[in-house]
């Protein structure tokens, strides 16, 4: 390798290492939790070793019964039993009580010659192949169960996969809502941002700088500050409601609910993300020569024809860049919906945060994140196909 290449490689290597350690590795390890988990497996490791060689047709060998009879009581003593029983119960109800009861009664039951018979005495379900299939799948290291849960699907006892009943679906409606909100916010940002960008691009230099500053100052302000400012404005006792009541448009008991719901999420997110639309649009518009519109007028096009056929098509790269930025930021938005969304204005990111911080179900959080990531990648590819990323201009 030529010397110069070695030097340049050495120069970028620290950067690669930094990105790898601080970004790629944590991301990969978290995402891997969505399908690979040893937490439950480690409750009954010996049983799982025996079951690994089992064909799943007939009852497992005596060794499996012996192993589980040993491991369940010790798991109970370690307080790790609930992991297994909970997971198994999610697959089939009744498993929790079976496992808990067995763990309690094994030491107290008289040994009947074989562990198979002993366990069958505690509960006849142990003589059922189905019980073992559930235990094996509940404790498996590789599992799709987080994905199933995240997609509101459930595995039937017979192994087939079905959608959950309508009223039990949680994540898919939330994912759809997130996509819908992101698309709507993108559209709103476009509708509001396009005229603003045009105004700035066409203004004389002095006014242009002032207008740009008005866009940039909020952009530089903390996200938290901007979001809480909306709380001050929109809440029941907030500025807007007070104003409308004072003017007599509203009575005290008919104050508008503009925050802690979807409206709040929409308003605050659109405001916060607006600069990401305005700035790329502005930079593209600045690069369009003024005489383009003059040329189109001289050729007989009305101002509207000139805008639609000459100006607008030339701003498409900016629209593409702005829309992609806003959409991708919106789809993972967390703080703003958490602060102003109430319960109806929450998005998928809030649910992921809940599973990471509160329920500690990292596997599910990882599965939800992966699904979100895939959704973004699919939309990006679609977008690339339609608009062409190389035509995009970020400014």
């Amino acid at each position: 390798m030529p010397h110069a290449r070695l030097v340049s490689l050495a120069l970028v290597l620290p950067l690669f290492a930094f990105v790898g350690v601080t970004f790629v590795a944590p991301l990969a390890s978290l995402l891997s939790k969505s399908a690979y988990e040893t937490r439950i497996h480690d409750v009954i490791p010996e049983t799982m070793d025996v079951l690994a060689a089992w064909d799943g047709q007939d009852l497992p060998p005596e060794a499996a019964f012996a192993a589980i009879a040993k491991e369940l009581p010790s798991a109970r003593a370690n307080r790790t039993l609930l992991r297994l029983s909970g997971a198994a119960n999610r697959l089939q109800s009744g498993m929790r009580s079976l496992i808990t009861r067995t763990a309690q009664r094994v030491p107290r039951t008289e040994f009947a010659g074989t562990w198979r018979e002993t366990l069958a005495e505690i509960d006849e379900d142990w003589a059922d192949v189905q019980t073992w299939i559930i235990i094996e799948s509940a404790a498996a290291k590789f599992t799709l169960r987080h994905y199933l849960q995240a997609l509101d699907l459930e595995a039937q006892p017979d192994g087939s996969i079905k959608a959950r009943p309508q009223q039990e679906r949680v994540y898919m409606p939330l994912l759809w809502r997130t996509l819908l909100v992101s698309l709507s916010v993108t559209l709103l940002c476009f509708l509001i941002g396009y005229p603003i960008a045009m105004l700035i691009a066409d203004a004389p230099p002095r006014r242009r700088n002032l207008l740009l500053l008005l866009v940039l100052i909020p952009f530089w302000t903390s996200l938290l500050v901007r979001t809480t400012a909306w709380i001050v404005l929109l809440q029941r006792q907030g500025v807007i409601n007070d104003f409308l009541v004072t003017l007599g448009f509203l009575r005290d008991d008919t104050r508008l609910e503009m925050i802690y719901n979807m409206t709040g999420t929409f308003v605050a997110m659109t405001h916060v993300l607006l600069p990401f639309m305005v700035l790329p649009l502005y930079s593209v518009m600045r690069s369009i020569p003024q005489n383009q519109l003059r040329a189109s007028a001289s050729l007989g096009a009305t101002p509207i024809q000139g805008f639609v056929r000459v100006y607008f098509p030339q701003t498409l790269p900016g629209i593409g860049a702005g829309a992609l930025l806003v959409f991708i930021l919106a789809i993972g938005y967390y703080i703003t919906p958490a602060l102003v969304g109430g319960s109806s204005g929450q998005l998928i990111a809030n649910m992921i945060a809940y599973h990471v911080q509160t329920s500690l179900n990292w596997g599910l959080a990882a599965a939800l994140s992966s699904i979100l990531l895939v959704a973004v990648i699919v939309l990006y590819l679609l977008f690339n196909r339609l608009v062409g990323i190389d035509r995009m201009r970020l400014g």
Partner: protein
Amino acid sequence: MSKTYDGEHWIVEGLDLTVQRGEFLTLLGPSGSGKTTCLMMLAGFEAPTRGDIRIAEQSVQGIAADKRGIGVVFQNYALFPHMTVGGNLSFPLEVRGMDKSKRRSRVQQALSLVRMSGFEERLPQALSGGQQQRVAIARALVFEPELVLMDEPLGALDRRLREELQFEIRRIHRELGVTIVYVTHDQQEAMVMSDRVAVFSQGRIEQIASPEVLYEEPTRSFVARFIGENNLVKGEISHVKRGVCTVQVEGGSMTAAHLGDLAPGDRTLVAVRPERIQLRPQTGAYANEFIAKVEDVTFLGDHLRVRFNLFGHAQFIAKLPNIVGHGALLPGDEVRLGWAALDCRALNFEDT
């Protein structure tokens, strides 16, 4: 008509200009002289502050640019980058609601007029500057306007291409018989192309005439200075008689053509073309004869460019044909120069 942007400084002042149908008129002037503003007002992109513009006796005041039906060619082409060449040409026809087959034949026709047939599918950025300007010209002509405005269309091109396109534009003008108003700051371009040239200075027309007349008979010292080369000598008119006047200059007196509005006692600039100066004329052949000192000689092949000192005026230039005897001039030589009274014009005084 007149135009001001800020209400204080007039960009164009008291302009009164008539363009003949089918004429090639050039607005010539240094940058900032108001020629482009005039063109923009004619196109309808700007409105005159005072006055009126009439096309075929109809006032176009208040008629928007897109309703005037005037073709415009811009300096930097202003082709639409997102449309192909064909799309650019077909655009003015589409907005006029022309049907597709008719559009296609018109586009073909316009492209062949500028010798760009076969380029329909190309995008403008895939073309060279000269090709882009050909397309821009075709686009300004494709909807058959009677009047085409060109705003320094060749300004961004190199010299060779510029000459080629000057010729092309001339040819197109002759073939189509359209009226062209052309803006340039290149006097050579104006001389080569135009039927008439209007020389602009500071928002006013100094002189409007055919290229020959502008060169031979400038009526203003600005024109004398701007078109071609002239020796301008300061002086004061002492005597006027039948179109000829005597001008007192530093160290002598000259006899010059008199243009009417100057009276004895007025200050004047006397303009003498360098190529009209004779070396060692026959005594008495010319009204003006002086002894001058050679300052330096530049050999330019077919002619010699000689700088003389004529009564303290050290920038007096003569272009002498390269013939026998002229080669022997050396700096420091004192020689006799002469020129005719009619080759020497007493113009308005301007401090240079």
